[in-house]
């Protein structure tokens, strides 16, 4: 299946791509279009683009929306969603100190990557690491 998002991926889209490839679609292929470009290509699932199904809803990030839409209830994923929420959206309550750092690291990954595809690829390691670390701690969704 093909998935499309805007160019210049960051913390939320790297998280989503990791989730898609790992849990939803092992053969996922990602396409990138310039921010704001319309119409979107036909027959591909858009994510993290304002107004589409898989995007921010009710103040939550796209990663959070994806967990809800695909009914993924792993508490470790829920905690990652909290971190991405705090990294990518304006939140009154900040509970995850990793959020700010994760945001900067993901931005930096994009800077050292030749294109968005490479950036998503590298971002995977970051989320694998985050998952492993959170899984080793007592559960806190």
């Amino acid at each position, binding site marked *: 299946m093909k998935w499309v998002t805007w160019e210049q991926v960051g913390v939320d889209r790297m998280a989503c791509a990791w989730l898609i490839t790992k849990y939803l679609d092992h053969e996922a292929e990602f396409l990138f279009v310039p921010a704001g470009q319309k119409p979107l290509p036909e027959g591909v699932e858009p994510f993290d683009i304002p107004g589409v199904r898989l995007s*921010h809803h*009710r103040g939550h990030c796209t990663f959070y929306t994806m967990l809800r839409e695909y009914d993924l209830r792993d508490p470790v994923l829920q905690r990652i969603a909290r971190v991405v929420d705090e990294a990518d*959206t304006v939140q009154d309550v900040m509970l995850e100190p990793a959020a700010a750092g994760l945001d900067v690291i993901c931005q930096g990954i994009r800077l050292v990557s030749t294109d968005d595809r490479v950036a998503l690829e590298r971002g995977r390691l970051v989320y694998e690491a985050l998952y492993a670390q959170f899984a080793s701690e007592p559960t806190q969704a």
Partner: protein
Amino acid sequence: MEQPPEAPWVLLVYKIPREPTASRAAVWRKLKRLGALLLHDAVWVLPATPWTREQFQWLAVEIGELGGEAHLWESHLLLNGQADALVQQFQSRVDAAYQEILDELEQEDVDLVALSRKYQQVRAQDYFHSALGTHVRERLMSARGGFAS
């Protein structure tokens, strides 16, 4: 700091139902947290960066989900000097917040944890890199005591 006259701004205009007040307040708080400036009680303004564009886009979607309506533009100022004046407004607000931190640092029994958190919040809104921010950072560093860095 001077803003090049051609530098773009993002503008948000929105309307949201009076009730529930919690939704209205949540949107208001987000605009405040983003450090957006409300011009003439009508238009919310931020300097356009990839980050502010994205944050305003998401906020516009959220306002729609809350039963409201939002319009979002990116634009340039056409009158000479207005860009600088606008930057000044952003700057003076951020500087006032930095000054509060400096004043609190003069107090006895200062809560450095709370102040450094406040500094981080102000810095997130410091779109034009106020020199006072650098000063606050240095003061916080030296206020922590212990070994000199």
